[in-house]
């Protein structure tokens, strides 16, 4: 019998592009100076499934019109952002500025091992749920049952630190499942 390694055939490669995009947003708003306004302003965010990462509230600082300025950082699905702005306006909250915190740093990571779809899903979710990083592209090569699979994963994050955190999450998950992670230099 001939050595089967001479007959190595390239397996098909599938690419998954994800559609639901969570974005990180910083927002400057102004509240009326009456009790209960903060809760009143933050409610629509959680109602829309958003996450509040930080609130900066300077009590002693006021706008010329006597309102209280507030800085918010939140994560929210891209498609919900406009609805949020509408709801805030309805509640009498002035939205002064909205800035998207872009996923501006990316890296490619390779995985090798017995990769199962469910493991991948779990890994992607754990990164996407951070709000500061996500898996933006994934190519998977599964030559067959009982054979080693490989995947290339593109991670994006809002900054270098966050990218490193995302890689740590990926590495921790992979280690648990005995999957080898090849990171870039």
């Amino acid at each position, binding site marked *: 019998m001939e050595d089967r390694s001479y007959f190595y055939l390239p397996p098909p490669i599938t690419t998954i592009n994800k559609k639901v995009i969570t974005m990180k947003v910083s927002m400057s708003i102004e509240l009326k100076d009456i009790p209960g306004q903060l809760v009143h302003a933050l409610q629509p965010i959680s109602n829309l499934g958003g996450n509040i990462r930080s609130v900066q509230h300077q009590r002693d600082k006021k706008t010329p019109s006597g309102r209280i300025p507030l800085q918010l950082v939140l994560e929210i699905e891209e498609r919900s952002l406009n609805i949020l702005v509408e709801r805030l306006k309805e509640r009498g909250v002035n939205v002064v500025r909205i800035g998207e915190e872009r996923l501006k740093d990316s890296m490619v990571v390779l995985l090798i091992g017995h990769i199962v779809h469910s493991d991948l899903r779990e890994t992607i979710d754990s990164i996407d749920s951070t709000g500061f990083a996500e898996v933006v592209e994934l190519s998977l090569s599964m030559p067959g049952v009982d054979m080693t699979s*490989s995947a290339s994963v593109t991670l994006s994050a809002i900054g270098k630190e966050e990218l490193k955190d995302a890689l740590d999450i990926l590495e921790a998950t992979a280690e648990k499942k005995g999957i*080898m992670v090849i990171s870039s230099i």
Partner: protein
Amino acid sequence: MKQETVRISIIGFGYVGSGVAEVIRRKREAIARKHGIDLKIVGIADLKGVIADEQGVSEEAIRALKAGEKQGDMTSLDIIRDVAHEVMVETTPTNVETGEPGLTHIITALESGRHVVTSNKGPIALEYQKLMELAAKHGKEIKFEAAVGGAMPIISLVRENLAGNGVMSIKGILNGTCNYILTRMAEEDLPYEHVLKEAQEIGIAETDPSKDIEGVDTAVKLVILANSIFGMNATYNDVKVVGISEITPDALKLANDAGYVIKLIGDVDSDGRLEVAPRLVPKDDPLNVGGTLNVATIKTDLAGEITVIGKGAGPIEAASAILSDIIGIYS
């Protein structure tokens, strides 16, 4: 020019040891003219026997030694201790567990007042500090450029040419066998086992390739760099090591599609990180060299990044580093 005679012993007369004798024979006159030192081999030891001659060993005696004609009753240690000379060249096999026989050869040489130049990784990786202290105590030098990147200068580059710079990290391919295997797998789309067998057939991989492919050889070289350049006191056990045997043609193809190659990279930095692992290297990065080449990128605070590429193995290439080390002691 005033000539100084530098008498040399070569302990371990295999590929590299014979390479040293060969380059000295070829370059002796030129070195005398340029550097004012006359290199004279006065003793050679090998497991097959030893030869010694204070006038310089003859070509015939070397041929006889190589042919396995037993040459008398002296041992390697007798040569090191009792034959008057200035530089002991240590080129016996690397043992990363005990460092022997090289460790004893080197200690004996320093205690006998000889400078030491070696290509043997074991003693330097295991007992760096002790050997440096011993050398200092006896006012002698110990040099080991050949042990890390073969012909590729790293240690003298950092210590001499980049003197004054702070070194932040050194990253590179320090094992030609792994580089050959990964390069062939990627270029020809061949599985690991196939390429390994091929590499063994053409003499690039050893019959027992485990030290190379499991990353041990790279890790040992990294320890030498950590200790000699970063002033650490590291041992092999401090290095996180992953080898290349799990790499598949699929993985290489995915990497290629994303603009990368996979290389076994040794990585040491001033924060104490010591790691050997397959890494993605952008195709346009200077670390992307093919075949059996070695490469290292040295990141410094003043000069920025400097990359050296060269042949990491080969008897003449290793002998080149040894020769430069010898000349370096006298300039």
